[in-house]
């Protein structure tokens, strides 16, 4: 088409024109909305060639040759690459500018590469945002910020497309979007932070958020460098690391107790309402954390790298770096390859960027920052590094601390003893929390004799506590920074024998040989103790007991220490602490943490002071032995501190310190109050429970009324079935519904039984009725004659019975003669029995009763009749009684022979109906005759009816 003049239509294709440079482009029908009117605009690309020219000029001074305008963009068959090639699937109304042909795109593509090189500093930030979520609108708007290659572009674009945000933008431009009920919000708060700068309210939150984003970021980075670095190795020690991670981050809000097991979190809730809230907020993002921590090693990796890179850059002559590489040899390849990957980014820059990010939430963490910053140089273990880092620490917040912790913990799996140490401590903490009633001081587990090792451990713990609690004296920091660092080194890398190599200063002052020996012994003892402790930790049941047994460092020790250095600042700190504790809720934990803090501070102060005056005297063996003894004595469960009141007591005791004079024992327990309090508590709880139930019931009512209609319709919709397709399948359980149930029969049985019982009861007949026997014979005779005539008609069917009953009847007669009411009663019943049998008794009874009441004469006459016509027959007797109950005769018949009796007329008549009475031909003739007559009649009637019908409308 090159020869064609721009503007000529492509033959055979409507709406396709040849544009500048021989390109075939579609004529666009654009629908543009202005106000309420929607118009369609036609956009003919051939007429807008000047725009391309304009763009060309502004984009690049060097004019692009025409041949270069056709770009071969590699890429698969996916949407984006197709779009980039200019093949748009279906037109979506956009502004004309956006859909302008490729000139712009190409220029962008050209620019992009240049731009990439410049934005190295932004790179970090952008990548962070990208990592947080592809749904970010910002990232969408600046797609060229974090793209290293075409692949990256692809990935980015794909992510954008897949995100609903992209959808949303389209929707924004076209129409509103309708989402389902299950539409899940992306965590709004995050965006809130990034897009709306609400640093005030969400500070604490933000800090954590940033941590997570950082992690994510690091993960992202690590993932990118992953294939190169082969980091799979690193993942070997993963489980423990992830564990420690979680721990750290979960407790982000309260780092002063960072070593508490995650299991205990619920019990060790939080100190103040704020923190509680924080935690509750934090808990919502737990899942996120977990998801992120699933490959937590990557984070560690990256940070370690960063740190190391920073160290390298600072040209530190110290061995820390070497050691680090020794410690994690797997991690070492990282730094070399990374910078190569991320071109033009110096490690310091990255670190600085990270730290800068974290400064945004400085305010919220100011308090924590100080102490944490303090311990930072200690970890570095070098003076020069410390100097370098000191400036960094100003900008650093708790995360730096965390990073270090993580690094420490990363070493854990490699060093068994170390892990056991941490585990042990965790175990102790746990035990402490569970026991809860004790004054929880440091609790190293070593045996009594291993005093030096005790001290060592204590120090170690204190060290960690200092790190974690972050409440040590600031003065001590500078003085003891050196010692700290060295001690730390010794502790963190105990397996390297650096303990021997670099003994702590106070040890140095002692006799070197002795010291070494002691150290070795102590180390051995410590190791054995640690192993033992590990075993204990494994058995959770024994854990508490073991921890208790191993508890030492009693309260008096702490008290002594406090007494030793009663500095002003210390007091102030304590006051601070107390006020802080007052605000907290869980007293026990407060006390624990407080005392720990006090102890750690005391130790720090001691160290500070010991360098000045006392020096090694503090660690004299004699004193340590004393301590050990005291520790032995100091730790046993004090029953007075059990329970709620006990806690109160403990708080009191704590206020007095460890002064012997004010020791709180059982006598101070306020049992009554406790009881009362408990009582009131339970009452309140009950009330609340009741209220809750009440609320729920009301809710049920409220929801029930509103719910019903919808649920009904739903049911209707769901329940429709084509019955015709339904077949009974006995194997299916559902189909039991179609089975007829036999319960009915059983019911009828019971009913029958009832009836029977009722029937068996004799009717109560008032005896008075029977007394009134008239002796008027005339009437009696008249009656009996009637009865006789009646009876004789149907005498045939129960003759057999009659004979049986005759004897009884005679008895009756005699009894009736004597006119004994009881006998008459018996007689009547007996009569009935004989006559109707058990089942029919009820009906028989009715009749007799009726008879007795209404007509006295017949009864008497019946009796008299018997007497008079004694010779005649007993049948008549019976007939007479049944005279009034003629209707019952058929049932009586049925009693004997179900339906028929011998010689039943019906039996005789029946066959005649079936058998032919005449010949078939005759019958047929008859029938034909009859048929003709019938026909005639029908026709006639039909005609009559028609006539009538006709007549009716006329009239």
């Amino acid at each position, binding site marked *: 088409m090159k020869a064609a003049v721009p503007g000529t239509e492509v033959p055979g294709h409507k709406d396709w024109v040849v544009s500048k440079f021989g390109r075939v482009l579609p004529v666009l029908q654009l629908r543009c909305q202005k106000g309420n009117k929607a118009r369609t605009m036609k956009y003919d690309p051939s007429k807008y060639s000047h725009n391309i020219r304009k763009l060309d000029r502004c984009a690049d001074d060097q004019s692009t040759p025409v041949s270069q305008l056709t770009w071969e963009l590699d890429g698969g068959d996916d949407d984006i690459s197709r779009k980039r090639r200019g093949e748009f699937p279906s037109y979506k109304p956009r502004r004309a500018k956006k859909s302008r042909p490729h000139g712009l795109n190409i220029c962008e593509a050209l620019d992009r590469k240049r731009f990439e090189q410049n934005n190295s500093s932004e790179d970090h930030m952008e990548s962070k945002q990208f990592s947080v979520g592809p749904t970010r609108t910002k990232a969408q708007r600046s797609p060229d910020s974090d793209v290293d290659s075409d692949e990256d572009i692809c990935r980015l674009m794909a992510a954008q497309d897949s995100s609903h945000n992209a959808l949303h933008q389209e929707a924004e431009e076209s129409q509103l979007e309708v989402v389902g009920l299950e539409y899940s919000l992306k965590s709004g708060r995050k965006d809130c932070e990034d897009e709306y700068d609400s640093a005030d309210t969400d500070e604490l939150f933000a800090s954590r958020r940033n941590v997570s984003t950082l992690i994510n970021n690091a993960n992202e980075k690590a993932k990118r460098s992953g294939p190169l670095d082969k980091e799979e190795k690193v993942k070997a020690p993963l489980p423990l690391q992830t564990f420690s991670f979680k721990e750290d981050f979960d407790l982000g809000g309260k780092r002063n107790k960072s070593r508490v097991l995650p299991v205990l979190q619920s019990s060790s809730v939080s100190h103040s309402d704020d923190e509680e809230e924080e935690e509750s907020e934090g808990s919502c993002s737990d899942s996120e954390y977990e998801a992120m921590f699933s490959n937590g090693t990557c984070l560690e990796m990256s940070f370690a790298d960063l740190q190391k890179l920073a160290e390298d850059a600072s040209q530190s002559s110290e061995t820390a770096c070497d050691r680090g590489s020794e410690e994690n040899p797997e991690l070492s390849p990282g730094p070399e390859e990374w910078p190569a990957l991320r071109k033009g980014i110096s490690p310091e820059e990255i670190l600085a960027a990270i730290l800068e990010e974290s400064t945004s939430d400085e305010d919220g963490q100011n308090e924590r920052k100080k102490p944490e910053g303090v311990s930072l140089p200690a970890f570095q273990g070098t003076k020069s590094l410390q100097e370098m880092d000191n400036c960094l620490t100003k900008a650093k917040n708790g995360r730096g601390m965390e990073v270090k912790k993580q690094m420490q913990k990363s070493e854990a799996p490699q060093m068994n003893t170390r892990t056991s140490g941490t585990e042990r401590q965790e175990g102790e903490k746990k035990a402490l929390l569970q026991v809860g009633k004790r004054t929880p001081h440091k609790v190293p587990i070593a045996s009594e004799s291993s005093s030096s090792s005790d001290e060592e451990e204590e120090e170690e713990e204190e060290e960690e506590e200092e790190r974690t609690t972050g409440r040590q004296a600031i003065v001590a920091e500078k003085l003891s920074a050196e010692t700290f660092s060295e001690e730390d080194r010794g502790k963190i890398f105990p397996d390297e024998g650096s303990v021997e190599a670099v003994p702590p200063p106070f040890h140095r002052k002692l006799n070197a040989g002795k010291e070494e020996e002691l150290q070795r012994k102590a180390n051995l003892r410590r190791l054995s103790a640690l192993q033992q402790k590990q075993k204990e930790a494994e058995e959770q049941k024994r854990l508490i007991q073991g921890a208790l047994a191993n508890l030492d460092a009693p309260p008096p020790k702490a008290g002594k220490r406090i007494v030793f250095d009663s500095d002003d600042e210390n007091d102030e700190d304590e006051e601070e602490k107390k006020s802080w504790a007052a605000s907290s809720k869980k007293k026990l934990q407060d006390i624990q943490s407080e005392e720990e803090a006090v102890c750690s501070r005391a130790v720090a102060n001691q160290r500070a002071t010991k360098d000045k005056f006392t020096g090694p005297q503090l660690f004299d063996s004699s004193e340590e032995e004393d301590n050990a003894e005291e520790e032995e004595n100091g730790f046993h469960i004090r029953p007075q501190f059990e329970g709620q009141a006990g806690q109160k007591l403990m708080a009191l005791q704590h206020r007095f310190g460890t002064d012997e004079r004010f020791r709180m024992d059982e006598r101070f327990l306020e049992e009554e109050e406790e009881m009362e309090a408990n009582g009131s508590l339970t009452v309140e709880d009950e009330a609340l429970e009741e209220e809750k139930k009440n609320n729920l019931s009301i*809710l049920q009512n*409220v*929801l029930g009324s*509103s719910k019903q209609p919808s649920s009904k319709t739903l049911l209707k919709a769901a329940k429709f079935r084509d019955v015709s397709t339904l077949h009974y399948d006995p194997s299916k359980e559902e189909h039991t519904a179609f089975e007829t149930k036999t319960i009915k029969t059983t019911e009828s049985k019971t009913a029958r039984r009832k009836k029977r019982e009722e029937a068996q009861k004799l009717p109560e007949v008032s005896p008075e009725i029977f007394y009134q026997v008239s002796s008027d014979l005339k009437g009696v005779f008249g009656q009996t004659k009637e009865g006789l005539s009646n009876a004789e008609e149907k005498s045939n069917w129960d003759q057999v019975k009659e004979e049986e009953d005759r004897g009884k009847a005679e008895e009756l007669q005699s009894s009736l003669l004597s006119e004994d009411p009881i006998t008459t009663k018996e007689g009547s019943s007996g009569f009935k029995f004989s006559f109707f049998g058990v089942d029919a008794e009820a009906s028989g009874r009715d009749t007799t009763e009726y008879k007795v009441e209404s007509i006295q004469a017949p009864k008497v006459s019946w009796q008299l009749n018997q007497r008079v016509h004694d010779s005649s027959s007993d049948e008549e007797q019976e007939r007479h009684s049944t005279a009034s109950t003629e209707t019952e005769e058929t049932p009586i018949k049925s009693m004997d022979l179900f339906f028929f009796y011998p010689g039943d007329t019906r039996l005789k008549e029946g066959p005649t109906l079936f058998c032919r009475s005449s010949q078939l031909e005759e019958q047929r003739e008859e029938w034909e005759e009859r048929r003709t007559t019938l026909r005639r009649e029908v026709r006639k009637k039909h005609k009559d009816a028609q006539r009538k019908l006709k007549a009716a409308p006329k009239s």
Partner: protein
Amino acid sequence: MRPLTEEETKAMFEKLSKYIGENIKLLVDRPDGTYCFRLHHDRVYYMSEKILKLATNFSRDKLISVGTCFGKFTKTKKFRLHITALDFLAPYAKFKVWVKPGAEQSFLYGNHVLKSGLGRITENTMQYQGVVVYSMADVPLGFGVAAKTTQECRRVDPLTIVVFHQADVGEFIRNEDTLT
């Protein structure tokens, strides 16, 4: 401060159920502790048992607010939700409306949401259904009442109101003195 009477509870639940439906149960029956509603100065506060107990230490006239204010009872004993309840409505909301960035401000100044500002809406929203209003970045901005069903929203012209304004986070500033 006292527990709500049955009528009050009913009135409040009816109002709440317009927004979060049966999710009220999650507010009443919480796994993380006992939470309850309390009436104080005609306002309903939602608080944990702990705070409730702490609050009993203060005399009634001195206590301004405790826990989270959900709303207040009008003189005619109707319940009116306050914006402070948004924190509890937003996560449980059944029907949601997203407003475009351009319309956010308008909504936050107390105006109704017009069709032109409607970015996204939950399907099957009925008329007069309580909805929680979000920004396109999923930040809860307030809540309102759907003036049109979802289907109607598609058709109506851009200047019709689709969500009646009930409360928005702008009230935190506008009604700073009355919100508790």
